[in-house]
């Protein structure tokens, strides 16, 4: 997993509530058995006409947003299906950071497992950032995970909260399985204790 400490990039506004994982990566693209190849299908129903041509009305089809690495979205981003393909598609498109008032639980975990930084900001802040992104083209933000602060070139300095452990993992690009396997003895002990007391799960 690629570590993320400080990231500067172009911001794309997609200020809608409840952007579900069916929109982020529609089901017809979930049949691949690889982890790659999903970026081209990101938001595909919003991004392309049925014949595959670009839709004029979709933000990511316009410069400078085609090169955006930071997405600003409405509340409850990533709700719905558990498909990790959503996080893979966002990452492969180039996004490293998603800013929204709130995120769905499973998506938040999937993002964390793919080095995608999700940050919750208050609704008014999100609205302001989305407006800047819409008006300035390009609007750049710098996200400093170490100092937990987001800055722009106009004097914005917005602190954000993130769980210490999640921050540690993202900054070091740590593989969760590797971390858990350090405690393999604890797992074995748990299994043995359980076998001694009461019916074993089957």
């Amino acid at each position, binding site marked *: 997993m690629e570590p993320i400490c400080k990231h500067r990039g172009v911001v794309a506004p997609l200020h809608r509530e409840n952007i579900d994982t069916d929109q982020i990566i529609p089901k017809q693209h979930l049949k691949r058995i*690889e982890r790659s190849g999903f970026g081209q299908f990101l938001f595909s129903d919003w991004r392309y006409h049925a014949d595959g041509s670009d839709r004029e009305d979709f933000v990511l089809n316009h410069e400078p947003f085609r090169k955006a690495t930071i997405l600003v979205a409405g509340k409850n981003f990533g709700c719905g299906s*558990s498909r990790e393909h959503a996080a893979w598609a966002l990452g492969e498109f180039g996004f490293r950071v998603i800013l929204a008032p709130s995120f769905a639980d*499973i998506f938040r975990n999937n993002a964390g497992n793919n080095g995608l930084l999700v940050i919750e900001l208050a609704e008014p802040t999100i609205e302001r950032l989305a407006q800047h992104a819409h008006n300035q083209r390009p609007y750049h933000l710098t996200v400093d995970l170490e100092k937990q602060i987001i800055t722009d070139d106009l004097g914005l300095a917005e602190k954000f909260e993130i769980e210490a452990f999640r921050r540690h993992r993202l900054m070091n690009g740590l593989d*969760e399985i590797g971390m*858990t396997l350090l405690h393999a003895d604890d797992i074995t002990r748990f299994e043995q204790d359980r076998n001694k007391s009461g019916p074993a799960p089957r």
Partner: protein
Amino acid sequence: MSTPKTLFEKVWDSHLVRAPEGEPALLYIDLHLVHEVTSPQAFEGLRLANRKIRRPDLTFATIDHNVPTTLDERFHIKDQIAAQQIATLRKNCEANGIPLFDIGSGRQGIVHVIGPELGLTQPGKTIVCGDSHTSTHGAFGALAFGIGTSEVEHVLATQCVSQKKPRCMRISTTGRLPEGTASKDLILEIIRQLGTDGGTGYVIEYAGDVVRSLTMEERMTMCNMSIECGARAGMIAPDETTLEYVKDRPYAPNGDAWDEAVKEWEKLVTDEGAAFDCEIAIDGTQLAPIVTWGTNPGMSVPVTANVPDPEQARNASERAAMLSALEYMGLKAGLRIEDVSIDRVFIGSCTNGRLEDLRAAAKVIHGHKVHPCVTVLVVPGSEAVKQAAEREGLDRIFKDAGAQWREPGCSMCLGMNPDILAPRQRCASTSNRNFEGRQGRNGRTHLVSPETAAAAAVAGHFVDVRGWEYRN
């Protein structure tokens, strides 16, 4: 006396491998269900890292999302990418000693239908699957939730998940479900009240008189849709109804092991005085059949109401969401729901694809004919459900009415197989999500109970099933 605990806390605490301060807890998993769509990258990840599967004996697989529902295509899948995904699951199960309930085995079906049906789902277990509707299994007093593919890989490698402890919510229901309403209507009403993110960060325990009066299958429908209000999981304390359902199923404990298990399961209730982070009360007696009008499961009204007006929205963002939903759905504010005509009906899914759901739909449709403008797909949730339904003659009732009786799978709930809506087709669906494009690009989904779906199939538009003319 020790501190009173909630049902959730009892299951959570008894599965903690470690819970260090300031880190996610490591939670042991008793049952890991696997399907073809969210697992190939997990198996591949293990291979690349040269890691072994820790407990293949606690892992069970089936094929559900991709599988076509017509008999000829079921064994000769035309979509080559889908066929490869299924072939990959077979290879991965074979190579790792994971039992696979394959197509034609008599045990294949939607993962959340077969788990309970086989007795794999049991009270007090921790259950995960790479599928958000894993919350279904909470109906047994299990702690069950959906995970992503990286977490599937994590569970395969360690038999644990790394989880932040969720908060607890209790939804207490009073009364009984009125005639003509279903547990689907109850959960849709709960989602409407909570909103699509009202449950985020919570495990919800459903309690009270209505829940106690529900059958296991009705309880599964409720827990299944917990994810639609954002909840991590839904849970219902086990009782006599639960035990009766689990007993004598293929993977249920038997003999002395059954008695021992029951003794443990009887402890799985929320203690008097246990604290919840949030409590909500719902009066079941006021419930009406519900129909969604928008593009998320929280956008719903009673069948007797009108399509709501965005001008009545609570704020600007809700108004924008309502306008966009109405445009997508091709509906106008103020239109009577009962005047909304439909093109398709889908009866099935992990929400409403079980035997009782098919019985409920068949009872409504019996002796009637499907409206000439409507195509109806009935897709049993599993091979076992299909066989049981055919033994009762439900297939005949559907076919005589003009509905299509299909082979089991997820089917049109998410349209990964050939069963999809054409653009602008309108569908009364017993599934769980009405998101844009969910059942097919530009398709329009209205979520309803099996009874309401069947009534709409006959009438050609939504209709209040409480006044239905039964002909059996």
